[in-house]
């Protein structure tokens, strides 16, 4: 904890109100708070370093069996765990541990999925792996990254549970092909995918004080961060599946009710922004707004036949939003009084 006047004031007020169970003085340490863009930079660097380490180990040791690769991956994950455990304040060890953890995860996934032919099994295994990493890694950044990848893996797991396929379809399935399964079925898939995640995000955001009062805070905090980032960007990976962001393979399908899905993705990004606002997290708020704009681009590029329809939808939506915004502002002014 950082020795700042605000902290002393807070503790004094809590003590006055008789809310402190423990009265031991707070151990003050240096302020090691990392702004979001520093975390982003170290996270991306850690990811690339991890992949390079994995390639290096693969080329140097040339493991020739899945068992060898698995053991190697497990060792890397164990090394990462030890580093995170050893010293939670040392940035160097954090970065090295993140790189080792990424390399270890990739190696374990590679070993487990070497012979897998079912996309459901592939996505489900990655989901389980991310859950395990989330549970065991004693580091907030590592847990947030694992939560984000777990969300993405969850999206694909549900998708391939409903639409089993081969690994090739993971990369080459076209939106148009997915769309042929029918709108109702697509909507069911969307609800199954995102419903639980949205409910979970609502629960974690509104019940923050409950889980903050227990040891669950160590899991819930990074889970909420990863979940909100996943909700903001996850619509890109959501059913109906599109290649990468709004891939060229998917461009040009006719305007129909499927246009609802990118709009729902925008709504999810806005919801993530709202939750970020509730958590006073400016970085996450900015990211969610950026994600909403990317979804808007997807909406523009994906449906190629009737731009007039798009114009009508966006204009009606715009008028409705401005109207709602004015109403909410009037309500806020009324509640504030003269």
């Amino acid at each position, binding site marked *: *904890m950082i020795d*700042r*006047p*605000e*902290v002393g004031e*807070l503790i004094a*007020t*809590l003590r006055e*109100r008789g*809310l402190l*169970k423990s009265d031991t003085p707070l151990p003050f340490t240096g*302020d*090691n*708070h*990392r*702004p979001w863009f*520093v975390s982003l*930079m*170290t996270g991306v660097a*850690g990811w690339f*370093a991890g992949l*390079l380490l994995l*390639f*290096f180990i693969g*080329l*140097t040791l040339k493991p020739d069996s899945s068992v060898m690769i698995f053991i190697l991956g497990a060792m890397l994950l164990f090394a990462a765990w030890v580093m995170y455990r050893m010293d939670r304040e040392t*940035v160097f060890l*954090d*970065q090295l541990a993140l790189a080792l953890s990424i390399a270890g995860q990739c190696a374990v996934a590679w070993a487990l999925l070497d012979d897998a032919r079912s996309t459901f099994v592939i996505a489900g295994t990655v989901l389980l792996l991310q859950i395990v990493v989330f549970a065991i890694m004693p580091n*907030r950044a590592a847990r947030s990254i694992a939560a984000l990848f777990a969300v993405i893996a969850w999206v694909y797991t549900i998708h391939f549970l409903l639409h089993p396929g081969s690994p090739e379809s993971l990369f080459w399935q076209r939106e148009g092909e997915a769309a042929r399964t029918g709108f109702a079925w697509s909507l069911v898939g969307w609800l199954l995918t995102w419903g639980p995640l949205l409910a979970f995000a609502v629960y974690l955001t509104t019940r*923050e*004080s409950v889980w*903050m*009062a227990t040891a669950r805070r160590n899991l819930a*905090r990074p889970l909420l961060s990863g979940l909100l980032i996943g909700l903001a960007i996850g619509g890109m990976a959501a059913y109906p599946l599109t290649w990468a962001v709004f891939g060229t393979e998917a461009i040009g399908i006719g305007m129909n009710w499927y246009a609802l899905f990118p709009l729902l993705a925008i709504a999810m990004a806005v919801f993530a*922004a*709202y939750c970020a*606002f*509730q*958590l*006073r*997290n400016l970085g996450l708020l900015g990211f969610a707004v950026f994600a909403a704009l990317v979804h808007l681009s997807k909406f*523009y590029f994906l449906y190629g036949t009737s*731009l*007039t329809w798009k*114009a009508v939808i*966006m204009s009606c*939506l*715009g*008028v409705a*939003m*401005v*109207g*709602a*915004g*004015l109403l*909410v*502002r009037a*309500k806020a002014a009324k*509640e504030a009084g003269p």
Partner: protein
Amino acid sequence: MQAKLNRTELDELAEHYALEPEGVDVLLDLAQARPGRRATLDFLARVLRIGGVLSLAAGIVFFVAANWSAMAVFGRFALLELVLVACVVAALIKPPPSGLGRAALLLAFVTTGALFALFGQTYQTGADIYELFFTWTLAGLPFVLLARWSVSSAAWFVVLNTTLMLYCGLNPTGGLLWLVLGASHLEPAYILMGACAVNVLLWFAFEIREIPSVPQWVRRLVISCAFGFGTWAGIIAIFGDEKGAAGALLLLVVAMLAVFFYARHRRADIYPIAVVMGTFIIVSVALLGDQMNFADEGVLLITAIWLIVTSTVSARVLVAMARDWRGESA
């Protein structure tokens, strides 16, 4: 909307004093870590209004892009011009800083771009696409200046940087403006450094003048664009086969040092320094790979270690700076 303490600090407090949920509720309220009903309503109202205006703007752009054949040329122009006039009238009736005036001028800025696009589409002027964006940047500037709003400023910078990307990044080698650079036979890395320089100079100007309509988040956008181009130029200079591209790298280093020392001197925001460090990491990794020629697997290990070391040192320096600067401002 900044709380007194961040979530990590609040978690530590809750853990150390074993607070019950009621205690955590009080803690969050005292630390202003949860927005009240009024703040939430204000936030919702603002998001809905800004989102609504942007949605309307997107609707106009989509409409023009539709090349609606059912409408005559005159009708298409008349429609957009009516929207433009309506925006200007709305801004005159409720001038900025009123919300309506600002929103109307933002819409006018977007409509200006749509009007130029429609003009090019209808009369097939043969103009390169960067010329459309360049004209939009210039013609839309009065609306942005009058709006005095961060969202309009950000929109203008996005259009400006799209122009720079199309002009400097994609080398269109056509159009009237290309005559400026086309005849000089400049290497692409130098041209990209030109785009970087434009943004760096704008960033310096707005840092020094501190204009309210170009707040910190917009200046961050500008400096991100600057070093986006800078990093691109650096990578081209390293991997390209042009002679004399080292000069572009030198220019990049000068830009990085200038921004680094000025931001350190200002002691206001560590973001520009983080961007400079990010550029350094990416360009240095590219340089390392190029110099070692990816000869063997050892390069992978060295690059991984270099990434870990540089990102660690950067994070340490940035966190220390943020701590010191926050301490000074407290």
